[in-house]
């Protein structure tokens, strides 16, 4: 009895700790619930890059991370998937057209010199000075006009190239191209050796956003390989909030109906299982927050489903207990053998569910993983709640009392009377759990 009381207080302590965690710690919600976008990029091989190596992926990831962070939209995640894919999660943004353009944007800065074509028209040709020769760039404003411009700072090699180029082109025009678009073509007045240059935005200057985007792209560095979007999931914040509300309603209704059924069918036993189920839900949510599990819509579905499955173990135990009672066992023995005999079935069924969930977790896409994870946690935890918690409550409530009111267990009076008049040999047979 003393051990049982200790166990009871341990269960209570876990429950209270869980309530505390549930209350204090915010749940981490997936993008499909808060709204946001998830993009999967795949690095593309080309004639110049025939094979995607881990080093290339490193620099691709670095460049993409820089670009995504430059968008300034909160906690973005860039994650490597497999050997040539990147998963990008951007909260709060549903219109991905801009994000995609920004992520996939090439950042080619080129300085060009004038070239006379045979037919007498003028064109530009590459000089070898490009965005690769930059140390960094900033948004600045021109001291005289106040127009926005892009300031460039070259690295040592770039400074030398720029100095040589300006010397060569003194008195002529020099063109600055960004992504094959002519930005400005200033006249070079003298050799510039300081390793600095500015791009003014042609006539009318740059818009601030325009200058900022160019600076961000230049600073993030060029992508080492092309990257294509191969998967996209975006959920608007209204739909996300709607999903949260609906899951809550579904969860509350689901758990209420299950509890009502258990109480109506198993009476006092059902009531005990309801308390166990409440503890199960509280601890389960606390675990989600502590591990932490990012809750997605399917993850919540997994949790709600696990409620229905968690109670299965109790049903198996109660049915067995009732059978044992019908065979004339005392309440205490009936409860114990109810648990012992039902255990193998419970264990087997949980193992089979966990096995399929592990397969899902391994093979599934991210949406599926959330479901598998919450279901695995739920099934494992249900072993604790159905067996430890329910058994403890039953022992504490019934102790070694005789059963007076079979109705409390959903049994009829005559079931028990029949059992009690059973002969000694019947009792002997009943030991083996056989209804003969």
């Amino acid at each position, binding site marked *: 009895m003393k051990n049982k009381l200790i166990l009871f207080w341990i269960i209570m302590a876990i429950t209270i700790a869980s309530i505390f965690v549930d209350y204090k710690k915010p749940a981490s919600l997936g993008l499909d619930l808060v709204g946001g976008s998830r993009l999967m990029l795949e690095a593309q091989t080309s004639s110049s890059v025939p094979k995607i190596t881990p080093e290339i992926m490193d620099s691709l990831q670095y460049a993409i991370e820089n670009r995504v962070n430059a968008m300034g939209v909160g906690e973005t995640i860039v994650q490597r998937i497999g050997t040539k894919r990147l998963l990008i999660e951007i909260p709060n943004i549903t219109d991905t057209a801009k994000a995609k353009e920004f992520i996939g944007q090439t950042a080619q800065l080129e300085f060009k010199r004038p070239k006379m074509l045979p037919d007498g028209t003028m064109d530009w040709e590459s000089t070898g000075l490009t965005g690769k020769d930059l140390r960094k760039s900033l948004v600045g404003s021109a001291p005289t006009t106040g127009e926005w411009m892009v300031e460039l700072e070259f690295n040592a090699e770039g400074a030398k190239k720029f100095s040589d180029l300006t010397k060569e082109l003194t008195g002529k025009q020099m063109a600055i191209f960004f992504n094959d678009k002519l930005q400005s073509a200033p006249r070079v007045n003298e050799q510039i050796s300081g390793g600095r240059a500015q791009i003014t935005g042609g006539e009318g200057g740059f818009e601030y956003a325009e200058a900022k985007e160019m600076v961000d792209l230049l600073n993030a560095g060029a992508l080492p390989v092309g990257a*294509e979007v191969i998967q996209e999931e975006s959920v608007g914040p209204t739909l996300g*909030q709607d999903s949260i509300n609906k899951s809550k309603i579904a969860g509350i209704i689901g758990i209420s109906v299950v509890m009502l059924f258990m109480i109506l069918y198993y009476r006092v036993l059902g009531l005990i299982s309801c308390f166990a189920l409440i503890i199960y839900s509280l601890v389960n949510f606390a675990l989600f927050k502590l591990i932490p599990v990012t809750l997605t819509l*399917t993850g919540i579905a997994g949790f709600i489903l696990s409620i229905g499955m968690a109670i299965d173990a109790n049903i198996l135990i109660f049915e067995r207990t009732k059978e044992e009672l019908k065979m004339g066992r005392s309440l205490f023995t009936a409860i114990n053998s109810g648990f012992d005999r039902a255990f193998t079935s419970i264990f087997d069924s949980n193992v089979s569910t966990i096995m399929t969930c592990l397969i*899902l977790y391994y093979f599934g896409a991210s949406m599926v993983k959330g479901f598998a994870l919450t279901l695995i946690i739920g099934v494992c935890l249900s072993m604790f709640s159905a067996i430890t918690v329910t058994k403890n409550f039953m022992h504490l409530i019934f102790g070694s009392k005789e059963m007076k009111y079979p109705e409390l267990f959903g049994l009829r009076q005559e079931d028990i009377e029949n059992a009690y008049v059973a002969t000694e040999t019947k009792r002997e047979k009943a030991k083996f759990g056989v209804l003969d």
Partner: protein
Amino acid sequence: MANTNLIKDKYKLDIVKYRYFWLSFTGILLIPCIVAIIYLMVTQPNHSPLKLGIDFTGGTILQYSIDKKISIDEIGKIRTDLQNIGIKNPVIQTTTEAGADEAKSEVKNLISIRTTFIGDKESKDKVGEITDAIVKDFSSAQLVQVNSVGPTLGSELLRNTLTALILAFILMVIYISFRFRTEYGWIALLTLFQDVIVVVGVFAIKGIFFDTTVDSLFITALLTIIGYSINDTIVVFDRIRENMRFLAKKYSSGEIIDASINQTLARSINTSATTLFTLLALYFFGGSTIKDFALAIIIGVVAGAYSSIFTAGPILSIVKERIEKKHA
């Protein structure tokens, strides 16, 4: 004495006695499923037993929420508008969320537009163009969800999915044979197979009549069913095995199987019922995203409970009799 002959008067269901009836009845139930599956395998260009969604074929689905109901004429107008901006054969579907409280749910009427994959460089601005076209027709339209899967990723997902399904089946056989005798293992597998056929069949029928497509969530549902519906079979087999140990001398295997099924009937029904309650709550109140997912598991759970009683029992009795005849 009321309980001198429990094994007889406890019967609620005569499974073994009418086993050929039950097996034929099950067979008849399976016919529409199998016909639908074969029909799709023959008529579909990719010979798949189900209509595959963008997860497996590649494509893009855009969902817009609109504050009023959408009429058929309006759908026709959207279709023409989309074709005018170069979207070939868009699939347009509308859903109206039933049951959700009108004031609470902001997302009531949804239009979903399925097209070929939008995401590669040529079609970059297509989403914007489609949105413009929709907003022109419905000023309240709001893009609430985008799902896009590239064609190569799609076929890769399909491969992974099939591998996962086969692996799940193999693991189940190994586990059941390890826990029970081989004949139990094979019968459990057979019932599992039947459950999967029913679910796939219902979705094939839905595919034929309502153009329902299946996505990764459907496969998730199938795997969940494989893991869960075996539970009922395990409970029944556990009891049969236990009773065989003590009653084999006195009663025939048919009587023992019948008694075992009847003894476990309440728990088979109740365990499935509680799981169904939570699934039905998800189906009716959980929103459109997981409706089909919940439905697939609901069908699977019902099929699982049915097969553990009406398929596993009769077949086991036939197999047991064969084995007994051999030994006799």
